[in-house]
Every structure is written in C-alpha cells, then in structure tokens.
C-alpha cells in the first residue's frame, strides 16, 4: 500500500513532464489574461525578494475587525461600484507581494479583543483580552498589577531611535487599538479618569492623560533617553480630554456636556502648553489648513466620541477628514524627519459596523482603508518604506450560497444562469452575506449611520426579504443567534506587506510576530539612545 502511494505521484510527475515536452506553452495560453496576471505577480515577488530588509519608515495599517471574508466582500463591492463584476479585482493592498496568515487569540481568550491583539502587534508578546501595553501577568482592572508589567511598544522604540511618530484612527484615539501604541493600562476602558475606579485613580494614569504625557512618561521609564513626543495624532475622542463642564464644549458636541473628565484637567490645553509649536485642530477646515511643511506637531480630535462612518461623514456638523486624508497629512508631516518615521493607521469603524450587523458600513470602511493604503504607497518611497496591512481579528461575517458571478454582493442570492432570487427551504430568498450572531434584521432604508439600530432589541432569525432592498446602506443582515451586538470571530486574519523586510511576511504567524518584523526591518531597537 505504501509503495503504491509513492508510485502514484512519481507516475503523475512523469506523465506531466511528458505532457510538457509534447505540448509546450502555446501563445493562447501565454497571452491569456489570467496567465499573464499570475506571471506578473510571480515576477514582482522575485524582484521584491532581492531588496534590502532595512526600512527607513514603517507604516502599520490595522483594519479593526477586517477578517478575510470582509476583504473578499469589500473587494467585490469596490469592483461593483466601478461597474465591474467585482470578484476579479484587488483592494489596493491585496496587490502587495507578501501575504501571511495571523493567529489572533489572546493568552486568555480563544476569540480575541482589540486590546490584547494590538498589544501583541505593537509589543511582540501575546497578552490577555482587555489590557493595553502590559503582559499577561496583569489582572484586568487591577491597577496594582500594572507596575513592572509594562511592555515597550514599537512606537516607543521608534521615538527612542529618533524617528518621527504618528497615530491615526477613526475611532477614539484612546480606544484599544490606538491606545496600545502609546499607553499601558490594566483596562482598555480607562480612557479618562472618570472611567477608573476611585482607588485606581491615584496610582494609575488614564489613557488620555498617558497620550498627553507620553514624552515625559517615556523619559521617566527609560532613564537617559531624550525623546520629543508623538508628532501626529488624528482621531476622535475629545470627551476624554476635556473637563466635565459645558463651558469647555467645542460646539461640535452631541452631549450637553462634552467632556467626561472629573479631575478638572483640560488635556488639550495641557498639550498646547507643553508644545508651543503644536497645532490643535478639531474640524475639516482647520485640518485642511495644516501646512505640512511647516507644522512640526499636530493633535486633531475630530469628534466627541468615535469619528463618523465614512458613509455618514457628510452628516457631521463641523466636518471630519477621511482616513485617506488623515493618512496623507500624517505622512507629509512625518516625512520631514530625515531619520524616518513610524506611523500606525487604524480603520476603527469596520469593527463597529460589523458589531451593528451592517455589512454596507463595514465594507465601505474597508474600501476607505484600501484608499488610505493607496495614498500611503503613492506618498512614500517603496525602497525605504515597509507597509503592513492587517487586522486585529475577524467577525462572524460570511459569504454564502451560490450566487452567480457579478451578483450584487449585498444582494439576494441569484444562482448561476438564473434571473430571480434563489429560495431557501423555507420558501424565502436569502442574502449572500450574513452574520452568525448579533442584532439581526433591520431595514432602515438610506440610513448611513450603522449604529442606528442599537436602540431596538435583537431581531434574529429568518425574515421575509422578498420586498426588501438588501443593498441599501441601512439594511442590516440576518443573524442566527440573538445578541446585543455581533461578535468578533476567532479565525486567522491576513497580513499584507510591501517594502523592505516585507518578505518576512510569509506562512502562518502568531500575531506577536508583527512587532518582530517591524522591529527587524526598521531596526527600531538598534539605537544608542535606548538603555
């Protein structure tokens, strides 16, 4: 039996070899578009493998909750918006030469959260769910366990090396993913002092305060270093930086009192005092007015909480920049440093739209992230800039059924050679994309805020979609298990890489490997300044 199993591959190989000799590649095959496309990609890889691993700049893009099914569906939607079938296209970063799979679990959780996963990416160690920039020895929400368990981040190493640094997110800038670049906390929810237990407020510093005190704190932690602080910070979350007093409202707030801080501190003013040459902006026009050649440092807080969804952005009172606009502005400021820069860009609201069960929102956020990555590739030198694009975790979002080629990805399944929606065993049509759990069905028409459904209870299970337009922005897909919010998933996510060191991205990695790739390629810890 064993011999027979060995014989078969050998015979097959000989047969293929004989076939190749008898019928070499002919022109129709060589000129075939599929063939040429694949060959061009092979050539790209061969060329990239020869390049130097030393990256002057490192940019890490994180699509929060951007699992593989999200990428596939977003790719199709992007193509269909351009009038194509969609399946044949690539999101900008899917054309990068190197790809790998990433295992996302946390030390204490099979299905992870953003705090533990981003800590892994930024610090090279896996840790527990819900904690920021600390190792697994920390007990969540226990301030007394933080001291001594803080881990250094890639952004901190870049600072110590003398690079310029930037953090950009469409979520609150104190939210788990951006926070893991600069903060160390026993709980991701400690975004300002009012979020912390009274006992913890004396001995632990809230996340917003850590952002403002980043330079001072880093110099205290590593004696002898001299850093100059984060140059670019763009995101939402103003409420964590303002006193709980309506006198400090920005005018763009939705709450009666915008600020949440109960310690009376006005962190934006503290930042301005600390950095006389710093520019603070809070709306689109001020953002547009930033001169990237003369501005050394900028803090942009564009929303009281998370920034608007891309599909909903035009509804903001004061105006908010897009992720791609923020990316471009950030790069143009950071590249003024000849030593190079480290930049983390998060598309934070892919995750939120999925949690709300709104595929339209999640896919449009993903398409905007792809736009931001394209902006980065167009505004950096590929010979000296490592660009990584990945996700912290996936969502329970699926592409199912047997829709024909070019069928609207947000539509109902219409089978091959059919012109009408396929019917399930219950006699009802069904959509191609859907969720395993969550709030379930909503038909909100042209609503562009994915969170517009949180005020109603879950409505899981099958619905009659016969007369429902499932491609609208306000449609929320059916879900099987009723939950107050759709959940993360535990499967691997993809990572896409280009530039010096990108060839290290191959195979299946623990998520903590991402730090090591950035550190190696960027030489982040190779510094005389570090102690």
């Amino acid at each position, binding site marked *: 039996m064993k011999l027979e199993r060995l014989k078969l591959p050998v015979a097959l190989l000989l047969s293929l070899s004989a076939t190749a000799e008898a019928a070499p590649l002919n022109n129709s095959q060589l000129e075939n578009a599929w063939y040429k496309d694949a060959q061009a990609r092979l050539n790209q890889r061969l060329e990239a493998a020869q390049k130097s691993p030393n990256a002057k700049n490192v940019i890490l893009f994180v699509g929060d909750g951007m699992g593989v099914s999200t990428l596939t569906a977003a790719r199709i939607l992007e193509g269909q918006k351009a009038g194509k079938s969609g399946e044949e296209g690539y999101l900008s970063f899917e054309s990068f030469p190197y790809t790998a799979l990433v295992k996302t679990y946390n030390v204490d959780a099979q299905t992870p959260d953003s705090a533990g996963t981003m800590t892994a990416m930024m610090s090279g160690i896996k840790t527990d769910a819900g904690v920021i920039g600390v190792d697994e020895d920390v007990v969540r929400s226990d301030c007394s366990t933080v001291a001594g368990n803080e881990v250094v981040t890639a952004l901190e190493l870049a600072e110590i090396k003398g690079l310029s640094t930037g953090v950009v997110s469409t979520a609150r800038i104190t939210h788990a993913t951006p926070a893991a670049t600069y903060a160390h906390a026993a709980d991701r929810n400690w975004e300002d002092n009012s979020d912390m237990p009274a006992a913890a407020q004396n001995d632990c510093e809230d996340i917003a305060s850590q952002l403002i005190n980043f330079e001072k704190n880093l110099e205290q932690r590593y004696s002898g270093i001299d850093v100059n602080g984060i140059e670019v910070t763009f995101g939402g979350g103003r409420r964590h930086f303002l006193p709980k007093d309506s006198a400090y409202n920005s005018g763009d707030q*939705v709450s009666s009192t915008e600020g949440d801080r109960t310690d009376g501190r006005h962190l934006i003013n503290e930042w301005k005092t600390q950095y006389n040459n710093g520019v603070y902006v809070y709306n689109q026009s001020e953002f547009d007015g930033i001169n990237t050649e003369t501005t050394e440092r900028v803090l942009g807080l564009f929303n009281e909480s998370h920034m608007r969804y891309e599909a909903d952005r035009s509804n903001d009172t004061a105006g908010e920049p897009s992720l791609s606009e923020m990316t471009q502005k950030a790069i143009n400021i950071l590249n003024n440093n000849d030593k190079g820069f480290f930049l983390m860009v998060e598309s934070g609201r892919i995750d939120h739209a999925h949690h709300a069960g709104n595929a339209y929102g999640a896919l449009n956020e993903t398409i905007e992230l792809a736009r931001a990555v394209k902006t980065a590739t167009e505004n950096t030198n590929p010979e000296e800039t490592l660009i990584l694009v990945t996700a912290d975790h996936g969502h329970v979002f699926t592409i199912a059924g047997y829709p024909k080629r070019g069928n609207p990805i947000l539509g109902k399944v219409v089978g091959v050679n059919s012109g009408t929606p396929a019917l399930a065993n219950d006699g009802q049509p069904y959509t191609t994309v859907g969720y395993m759990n969550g709030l379930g069905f909503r038909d909100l028409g042209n609503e562009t805020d994915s*969170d517009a459904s949180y005020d109603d209870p879950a409505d899981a299970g099958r619905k009659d979609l016969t007369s429902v337009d499932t491609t609208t922005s306000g449609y929320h897909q059916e879900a099987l298990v009723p*939950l107050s919010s759709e959940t993360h998933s535990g499967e691997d996510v993809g990572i896409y890489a280009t530039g010096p060191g990108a060839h290290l991205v191959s195979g299946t990695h623990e998520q903590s490997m991402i730090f090591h790739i950035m550190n190696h390629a960027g030489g982040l810890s190779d510094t005389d300044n570090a102690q």
Partner: protein
Amino acid sequence: MKKIVIAWFNLLLMSVISFPLLAQEVCSVDADTLGAHYTRKIISADQKNVQEVQFELWRNGGQVAHVHPQDKITEIWNKTASGQIRPVRYFDQDLRAIEYAPDDIQASADMLDWQIKYQLVSAKVIDKLKKIEEKNNGCATVHVYSGRIGTSEIIIEWLPYTKLVKYFSVKNPSSNESWTLTKQIMSAEKIAAVFRLRESYQSTDYADIGDNETDPFFQKIIKLGFISHGASGFYDDMGHPLDGDHHH
C-alpha cells in the same frame, strides 16, 4: 367647513399671542426647569387587567429626563447644536448608562419631535382637539381639550404656563388609559440632583457594546429588553401608541 377651520386657527393664534402677556402678568414660572410626577393607569376594555405605573418628567435647561421608577430606567435627551435630539439611557439599578448618537433613534418624525420629550404630548394632537373649557387661575390655569383621533376618545387638561399635562385620558376599544399629574417640583436644587445623579453613572458609548460583550451588565440588558418608544408619552395624531401598550 372652511369658515370653521379659519375661526379655529384664529382662536389658536389669539391664544398663542396672548400667552406671553398673561404669563408676565400672572405667572413667572420657568417651564424649562421643573419636575412632574405622574400616575399612569391602564385598564383593559373588559376591566379584567389593571396596570398602574409611576412616571416622572424632569426638565433642566436644555435637557429632559423621563424616569421609569418601576423599571429603574431613566432616559435623558438633549438637543444638539444641529437641532437633533441625543438620548442617553440610564440603568438606575446598575448605575450604568449607554450613550446613543443623535441619529441613533430610529423612529418617526414625531419621535424626533422635541415637544414629545419635553411635554409628552405633541402640538399636533392638541391641534386636533377642541378646547372645551378654560379655567384661568394664574400658574394653575388649565385648558381642557377633548376630541376623537381615530378610534380614540381623548381628553387633555393642559397647564399652559408650565407646558405640562395635568390629566390625560384616552379611551379606545382595547383599553382605557389615564395619566394624572400627582406632584410638581420647582426646586432647582432637587431638579439638578436628578440629572447630576445619572451623570455620575459609568457610561458606555453605544458603539462600544460589542467590545464589552463579556461585561455582565451588557449580558443582562439584552434580557431586560428596551423601553419602547411608546412608553413615555401619548404621542401623535396617527393613533400609535395611544393604546397603552407598555413593552419592557
């Protein structure tokens, strides 16, 4: 018919014009800062089911609170700079809150009507009724309205200076519901305390619920359900939800 409509409009216009003068002369109450306690009673048509619940309406400047003591849930709304209404839901037993964005309330135009939050009854409803009596007595002046909307027979006793419903009754084939004002609070200190207490709760942004699924509070609230949009007020001129349904 046309003459009657015009006459009714003129009467309404005259009453609107005369209110500020009367208010200055006989009543200086601040309608934007007050508290009002109500007893809500719902009796089924067959008289077999009687439900009685308490309800509190509070106003504090640009904020309005609806307190549901039995459910231990409070909802507070504020107007944003863009004129939208922004809700925060407070869970009084858990000392927790969920903050929603202004666009998050998925509801009819009436639900987005600030009047409904502010005074429980929309001007559209009052406009459809006939004023049958006016008892002038300073701040306690009462206007009584009556009429039919759809299948509902409605009576409203209206306090024009405080913009409060003193009594509301709706009878329809399925039930008989009444709201009775039991107490008015004008103490600015007591009113501020109602809002201050809730602001001290630990709050979570609606969009962050998904990242906190393991929080026992969020695991619990999905079982608790939600305050229905028709639970605090008697609303629009289309008949819903004047039937007294109370979904919790």
